[in-house]
């Protein structure tokens, strides 16, 4: 089947922010949002703003229907078996914390092994460190090789020690490495481990099928995939979610509350306490529609083309080091460093040319330590990225080199 190519010029018309003239190269941090997403949110505010699951009047029913419709859209988008397996969270961080709290506290015991990787984002490290400290469990990290790819031999050795939990990101936010997730999940499941995949950087950029992936939990954020901030997803296999206690307690997550005790709501609402981010969830649904319209194969193909172009362009710059694997094995993320110019100075100079570039440790300090560098500059791409923006980045880099010469 031929993969459609994206009409980037047409796509950019849906994103009013590009009228400002910025070259936006920080989509791995947060994406831009099209009019279709902000419009869906505005429609809620202006036409049926009300609370969900409570009131018996028409606009509240409309709000509830739209809010719940996102759940089915997300289910289909990641091919989960049931909407009961789709829990709304504020984002990836909250989703992972939910698992660490509600699953971890029940299942991780003293002496247990948790396997993470050196490529993980802080949000997939710190919740497990807290849990491990509390339970007396310990953590091992899978290292990377010189190409920035996970050492599968070391991973296999760690699996022999029977970890209780294996958690890793499908795509590294700091280097863009695409991990062989399906193989890793299968190997981990074979040893009886529970597996969480951090999908924050994969879900926006490539087709995802959680059942084919075979993981127990899968977490991602709406704001990196054209949706608003404040709405993300935890996918969990139903039997695991059923066995977990609530994460947060309060309104909307209960069935009945008596002074003697409470029975909890069914899945997925058991995990959704308090008034939810209704507009944001509706916006996330519109983002999923938008991506489906483009086709995730086409999204990936476009990013690969831009990434190859950027990789080549950057490789031609003197005194520039690119970190991580070749374009075919990475998502639309390129981390690099310039000899003699700190990434922050480069980002400041690029900013003068309206080029939005990330500089820092990218919430992956263990990886930066592993690479022996304090920070990198990072360019990341999405459905609206054009080669011209990459050219502007290269100009800014050369300008920085001129200033610092």
């Amino acid at each position: 089947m031929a993969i459609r190519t994206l009409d980037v010029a047409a796509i950019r018309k849906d994103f009013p922010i590009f009228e400002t003239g910025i070259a936006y190269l920080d989509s791995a941090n947060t994406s831009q949002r099209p009019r279709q997403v902000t419009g869906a949110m505005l429609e809620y505010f202006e036409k049926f703003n009300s609370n969900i699951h409570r009131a018996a009047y028409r606009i509240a029913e409309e709000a509830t229907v739209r809010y719940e419709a996102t759940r089915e859209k997300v289910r289909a988008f990641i091919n989960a078996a049931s909407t009961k397996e789709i829990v709304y969270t504020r984002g990836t961080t909250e989703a992972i914390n939910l698992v660490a709290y509600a699953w971890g506290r029940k299942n991780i015991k003293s002496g247990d092994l948790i396997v993470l990787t050196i490529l993980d984002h802080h949000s997939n490290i710190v919740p497990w460190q807290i849990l491990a400290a509390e339970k007396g469990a310990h953590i091992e990290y899978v290292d990377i090789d010189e190409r920035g790819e996970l050492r599968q031999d070391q991973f296999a050795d760690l699996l022999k020690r029977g970890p209780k939990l294996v958690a890793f990101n499908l795509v590294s936010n700091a280097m863009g490495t695409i991990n062989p997730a399906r193989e890793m999940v299968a190997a981990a499941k074979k040893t009886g481990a529970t597996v969480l995949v951090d999908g924050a950087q994969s879900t926006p950029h490539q087709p995802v099928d959680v059942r084919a992936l075979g993981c127990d939990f899968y977490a991602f954020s709406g704001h990196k995939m054209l949706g608003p901030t404040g709405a993300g997803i935890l996918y969990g296999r139903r039997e695991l979610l059923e066995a977990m206690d609530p994460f947060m307690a309060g309104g909307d997550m209960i069935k009945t509350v008596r002074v003697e005790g409470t029975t909890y709501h069914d899945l997925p609402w058991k995990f959704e306490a308090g008034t939810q981010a209704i507009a944001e969830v509706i916006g996330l649904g519109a983002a999923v529609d938008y991506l489906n319209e483009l086709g995730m194969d086409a999204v990936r193909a476009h990013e690969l083309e831009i990434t190859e172009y950027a990789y080549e362009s950057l490789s031609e710059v003197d005194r520039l080091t690119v970190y991580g694997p070749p374009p075919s094995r990475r998502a639309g993320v390129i981390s690099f460093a310039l000899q003699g110019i700190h990434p922050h100075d480069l980002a400041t100079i690029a900013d003068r040319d309206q080029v939005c570039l990330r500089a820092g440790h990218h919430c992956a300090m263990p990886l930066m330590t592993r690479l022996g560098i304090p920070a990198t500059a990072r360019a990341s791409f999405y459905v609206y990225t054009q080669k011209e923006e990459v050219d502007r980045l290269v100009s800014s880099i050369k300008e920085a080199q001129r200033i610092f010469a």
Partner: protein
Amino acid sequence: MMATADDQFYREYILDHYKNPRNYGRLEQPDISHEEDNPLCGDVVGMDFRVKDGVIEDIRFHGRGCAISQASASLLTERLKGLALEDAKRINKDDVLGELGIEISPARIKCALLSLKVLKVGAYGLADDDEE
């Protein structure tokens, strides 16, 4: 046009202090030695002081990081050398930013003030109050 703006930001003397830092290195047996880092961007600045009769007789700094953090440290050591401790204590963030003489964006202010933090926390044991 952009080039001019950049040149204004990275003024010649800031780049000069970055590339040729003054009072760079370590002191043997300093009276005071302290280091601070900015974990957000990995900037590190440390300072060694030799103090005699209440006067900063000699000073060295070391570290790594962006041009703003390192130039700021270099400029501060120039100012501190030979200064009475009592006078050094009165140096505040406006002095440091004034010395840099450029518009510092909120995102970079911690870089600019890292060396002042070293001075305040290290040399005087002052509370690590947020300079923002």
